[in-house]
């Protein structure tokens, strides 16, 4: 176990090193900081002096070591646009993204487990086939499109006039297909509760929750089909194993077999995949936040790109990289703990 632990952690450190090298290369490769600091009239000698003073004439290795040393101490430079330390800017925006991810994860967990289990227990049922069909279509719809459709239906509203208005059923159908709209579709609302530090939460007020609904549903919509399919596939595999057959032979109730014995072994791979999907989720938050103008780190990153705010881009990469590395390492460690068949060399059996 110790060898496994050491191996995983050293791998995490190695990955973090590679990320920092890439981030450093971006910082170094994009533009000359001197050009942004001094005017045209500054002579070559003065430029050279400033260059020397800033350490830009040092070798790449020395410059990288300085960069990495500062990064470890939590100093990733100042944002050009905000004029503040980049980490401070990121921590101001992080809670919004975290709440988005929490809300979406809740929706995913509450829906994917029952639907996936149901589809596995009754694969031939009409409803199960319907769910699987919907999830196939769902995988093909990009997250930003789901978000736009949700805005059109629930925020702007849809008026349907396809059916004759002079008949009762026509009016009823038109009314049933039309929506009022009115759901907030931009930002987080103005009623946020201050929790601690930079965390202002939208979970504790009606306005805040209303603002969370559409972004969270959009973000959940893209991952939900994946999880339903995964849970169904794993559960069907487990249901065919010997111990389930023995449990049936023993005469245990179907509920006990399905939800106590089978579900337990189904969730193990699901949790690992779920942990890895955090990385995918971060990419989708960028898209979701763009559509809903959600003031999280994703939108901040995209704005930093359009503003060429290189220190902020670099800091975002480092922070997101760190989050990925930590979650992946934790997932691996947890998996190694609960599943003894994992070889200690780290290759999954």
């Amino acid at each position: 176990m110790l060898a496994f632990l050491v191996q995983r952690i050293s791998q995490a450190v190695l990955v973090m090193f590679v990320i920092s090298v890439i981030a450093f290369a971006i910082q170094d490769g994009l533009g000359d900081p001197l050009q942004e600091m001094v005017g045209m009239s500054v002579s070559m000698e003065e430029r050279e002096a400033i260059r020397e003073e800033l350490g830009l004439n040092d070798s790449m290795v020395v410059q990288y070591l300085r960069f990495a040393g500062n990064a470890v101490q939590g100093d990733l430079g100042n944002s050009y646009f905000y004029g503040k330390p980049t980490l401070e800017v990121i921590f101001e925006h992080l809670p919004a993204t975290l709440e988005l991810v929490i809300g979406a994860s809740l929706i995913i967990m509450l829906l994917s487990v029952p639907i996936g289990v149901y589809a596995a227990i009754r694969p031939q049922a009409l409803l199960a086939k319907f769910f699987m069909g919907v999830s196939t279509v769902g995988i093909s719809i990009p997250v930003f499109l789901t978000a736009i459709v949700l805005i059109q239906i629930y925020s702007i509203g849809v008026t349907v006039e396809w059916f004759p208005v002079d008949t009762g059923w026509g009016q009823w159908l038109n009314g049933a297909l039309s929506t009022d709209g009115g759901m907030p579709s931009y930002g987080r609302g103005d009623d946020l509760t201050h929790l601690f530090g930079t965390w202002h939460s939208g979970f504790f007020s009606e306005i805040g929750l209303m603002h969370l609904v559409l972004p969270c549903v959009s973000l959940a919509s893209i991952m939900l089909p994946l999880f339903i399919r995964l849970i169904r596939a794993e559960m069907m595999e487990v249901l065919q194993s010997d111990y389930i057959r023995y449990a049936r032979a023993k005469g245990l109730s179907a509920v006990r077999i399905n939800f106590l014995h089978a579900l337990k072994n189904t969730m193990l791979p699901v949790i690992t995949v779920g942990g890895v999907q955090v990385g995918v989720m971060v990419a989708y938050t960028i898209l979701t936040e763009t559509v809903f103008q959600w003031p999280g780190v994703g939108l901040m990153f995209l704005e930093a790109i359009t503003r060429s705010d290189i220190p902020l881009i670099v800091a975002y990469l480092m922070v997101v990289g760190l989050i990925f590395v930590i979650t992946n390492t934790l997932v691996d460690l947890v998996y190694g703990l609960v599943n003894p068949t994992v070889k200690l060399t780290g290759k999954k059996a």
Partner: protein
Amino acid sequence: MTTATLSRWNRFRESFLWYSFKRDKVAIASFIVLLLMVFAAIFAPLFAPTDPYDLAQIDIMNSELPPVGMPGADPAFPLGTDAQGRDMLSTILYGTRVSLLIGFGAVVLQAALGILFGLLAGYLGGRVDSILMRIADVQLSFSTLMVAIIVGAVFKASFGNLMFGEIAIYMLIFIIGIAEWPQIARTVRASVLAEKKKEYVDAAKVMGFRTNRIMFRHILPNTLSPIFVIATVQIANAIISEAALSFLGLGMPETQPSLGSLIKSGFDYIQSGSWWITLIPGLVLVVLVLVINLLGDWLRDVMNPRLYKG
């Protein structure tokens, strides 16, 4: 020559692939829809009423006209017009063309990289294998879309908007190809590991063939069916990635729109009630990706290669 093609055609007609295709209504329908869309996209200049790249054919007075069937529609523009007065039908046809081109190009690039690295990792094993697969693991844990966004952002920042717009098609093929090669590499590696143990490989080794020859001439042809399956799904993924990048402003410029940039440019007008500018290209995108995914599902069921879960 004629007999060879004839017998190949007969062989195809008697194959299990054709047999199961004939019996699968979903696969047939998807294939027909895909064929129609590809056909319409390739011959877009013939079908499109106007040329959206030609500024002389655009009149700003025609902007934001609704599709036929809604009040205020102009029959000259069956799907309405966008905010610049471009005919939606024409922009969508040209946009599908760009999206398909990028999707296909990106898959060719990632297949080339994936096959090369997958073969090397699987056949050579040892240190080459662990280094290549470690890189693939790390890249996959960051998710392909995230890698594509980051690479796109860096390119855009270093090339500048104008320059990036001009070479956007090549950039996007490159970005998506680089971001997604691990998927194919893993599949190739898995089947190479299975093939490597077979007798024909031993025989080839005993006959003294060079490693390159064994890898590319002997093992590669036997791993083609899983590559084919995953490449199909990857085209759909690449089209979605392209749309996502374009939607974020890291992809095709508005002057040469793909489906993704059409959705993006329409999104600015959705609050003013012009839903068709964004939702019609969106629908086309979903149908395109859906039929490719359905075909991929069918292919996987038929060929049943050992693909990676999830």
